[in-house]
């Protein structure tokens, strides 16, 4: 096969036609921060954390196809500042209570925060009033931390074949809703074993009776950066796809 290449921060990176920039970067061991993307699902392009510059123009690496002649900037001070701002926006949009959150230490939003050097939330908080749905026997939905990445929407629809979630509202009021006549999780066929119950990058979908299982010091991001964890996961998925 004819070798195709793009350049990421000056490094030649091979790609196959049809691959996104994110996929090519992942295969080459280059981490591009992301939250709404997970190679197990169709790319979505909504969080914009993966914003890179392609020949000087901004693009989301997770949805942008790799193509000949692309000079891509990824790890630059300017782009990292943009990512820090976006991460902060996600924090102030919801109610994030990191120290007390059951997901703390295993939360991707928090880990991205470490990665981009975020020391405070900087912007004024919106303190939204959001509902907790504890109706389901095994799973709890605490939307205070939902970042509307739609990973659960995609997982439930495309993998579980159940279509349990959807989005409603517009603008800052955009929110996750449950696909049942009552709007409650208990009235769906959702189960804790669903893919959608596992994919939430933050502490919005929580399995009940499992809180704080892992002691501080042994949590995922106590020892690894999101870059390492993410590359390992994403490469495994991509490898499985191709193998």
């Amino acid at each position, binding site marked *: 096969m004819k070798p195709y290449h793009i350049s990421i921060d000056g490094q030649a990176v091979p790609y196959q036609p049809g691959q996104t920039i994110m996929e090519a970067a992942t295969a080459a061991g280059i981490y591009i921060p992301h939250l709404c993307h997970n190679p197990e699902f169709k*790319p979505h392009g909504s969080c*914009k954390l993966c914003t890179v510059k392609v020949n000087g123009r901004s693009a989301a690496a997770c949805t942008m196809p790799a193509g000949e002649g692309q000079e891509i900037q990824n790890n630059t001070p300017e782009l990292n500042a943009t990512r820090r701002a976006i991460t902060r*926006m996600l924090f102030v949009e919801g109610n994030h209570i990191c120290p007390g959150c059951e997901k703390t230490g295993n939360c991707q939003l928090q880990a991205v925060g470490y990665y981009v050097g975020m020391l405070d939330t900087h912007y004024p908080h919106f303190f939204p009033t959001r509902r907790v749905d504890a109706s389901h026997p095994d799973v709890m939905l605490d939307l205070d931390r939902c970042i509307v990445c739609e990973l659960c929407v995609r997982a439930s629809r495309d993998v579980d074949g159940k279509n349990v979630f*959807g989005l*409603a509202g517009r603008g800052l009021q*955009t929110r996750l809703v449950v696909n049942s006549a009552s709007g409650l999780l208990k009235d769906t066929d959702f189960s804790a074993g669903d893919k959608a119950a596992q994919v939430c990058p933050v502490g919005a979908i929580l399995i009940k009776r499992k809180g704080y299982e892992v002691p501080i010091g042994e949590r995922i991001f106590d020892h690894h950066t999101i870059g390492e964890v993410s590359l390992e996961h994403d490469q495994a998925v991509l490898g499985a796809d191709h193998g």
Partner: protein
Amino acid sequence: MPLSDADLVHLRTIVARHGGEPTELLQILREVQAYLHHVPHEAMVFLYEVLQVPPAQIQGVVEFYSFLSTTPRGHYDLRVSDSITDQMLGSRALAADLCERLGVRLGETRADGAVSVDYTSCTGMCEQGPAGLVNGLALTRLDRARIGRIAELVEAGAPLEAWPEEFFAVADNVHKPGLLLENGFEPGAALAKLFERGRDATFAELEQSGLRGRGGAGFNTAWKWRFCYEGPDEDSFCPMDKRSEVQRFVICNADEGEPGTFKDRVLLNSHAHRVFEGMTVCAALVGAKRGFLYLRGEYLHLYQPLLAVLEERRRLGLLGQTIQGREGFDFDIKIHLGAGAYICGEESALIESLEGKRGNPRNRPPYPVTHGYLGQPTVVNNVETFLSAAMIALHGGAWFAAHGTEKSKGSKILSISGDCARPGIYEYPFGTTVAEILADCGASDPFGAQVGGPSGTFISDKEFGRKLAFEDLATGGSFIVFGQGRDPLEVARNFTHFFAHESCGFCTPCRVGTALLRNIHDKICAGHGTPYDLAELADLGKIIKGASHCGLGQTAANPILTTLERYPGLYEARLKETVFQPGFDLDGALEVSRRLTGRDDAHAHLEQANQ
């Protein structure tokens, strides 16, 4: 509130009228809203059962569009346009007056369910404002007297048919016709010419004309149509006659949501034949059988007249089967109404909306021209673009290209509003200077103009020599004049609120960023800003521009960035001298308690803010 049997029968009729098609969801929901004054939970459950559309999708759609609501609106649902031009004409005082007369709070529905009053984004009546809507129908030239009369009619329960006709009168106000509007047009003439010349020669005329899209971005129209005709890459392997079997669609974008734009309204009101003929020419060239006119909900008053034009064209053999006797040339057009969402003017969001979904812009590539409506090759063009295409098909490419500039051929129709003596419609060859336009519309000594609407460019009085053209000032058609005494900060504030209100919410930088911009800008306008906040505005603006998913987010900071650049002194004059100020007003936070306790004495106030 369980639905009555009569309600259920009615809902069933609505669904049946739309063939029970899930793509018709938005159209169905509009009618449910009109009938029940909201879309109650029970109606969503009902639709979920009959349409087999998941409840979350129905809820998602209802909550996305401004003209649909999950809680009851009044039987008279009044909305006052909150566009900057309406504000300049006193709309806010009129809205307050209306609320007071009716005893209802803005944004709320009166307890007896009779009436609700709210603001709405630009209704496209900028040159005959202050404007509003009642149950979706346009109200123009509001003033104290009309507001008083409206309140009486509401209290008397008078049906809208009994309201004075002049309240609903929408004028064209064409002050300066040019290349397109000066020349007459016989329905069918462009199509006849097309068949006389043949497809390839007509394509060549279109190419020669240099026509670029009139919706703002200015993409070459001939190229767009050719891409659509040639189809997606995966099809390019199959022979041309096979490719012609692909379903294609032609969509006319009449969403016209950019504040200050109303020229498409006039074109559809008085020149609909040309617009539909342009769509039919396009269909003939690209091989489409079905077309849509996506008409913004604010132009509900045009819906019936446009249906009548379509019917007439069918009668004339210009739409439907075997058009103009050409075997195999079948094409028809359907009108889809929007429901109050500026983002649905963005072409891929428009297509989502046509498919009965929330108006979220899609990821690109692929582009609509290869993967549009139902994933099929689709042309989306502005109303004026189709009208121009019809005129080019009739008069030829050279006729058109003889006007305008090197990179912007032909003419541009402008909607002019704001501080000028003769607001309305003007048509100019590209290359005309702002100064000339200002003189024509009777703008005496303005301090600036907004060209291209909030997403366009603000130009100060030092820049009036600039030219209307894609090379300099591109515009979809909005041209708002600001006279001396207007405050650029208030203008920027109105636009910034508009964007925050209209962000679809799909991507983080726009969803959160526009709300942050709005809050910080408000803070400065309220006199609580600091130099730090100014720096923050500039910084945030840059980030939102660079990282947003679509044109809305990418331009949302323009009003702030361009006014900051031109009037730094005005911004600085509003600042507190301290380096940091809290974003909220401690005393203001006590307002609710004061209302609840009925106290407003000195001890019920804090001194904090005014030292």
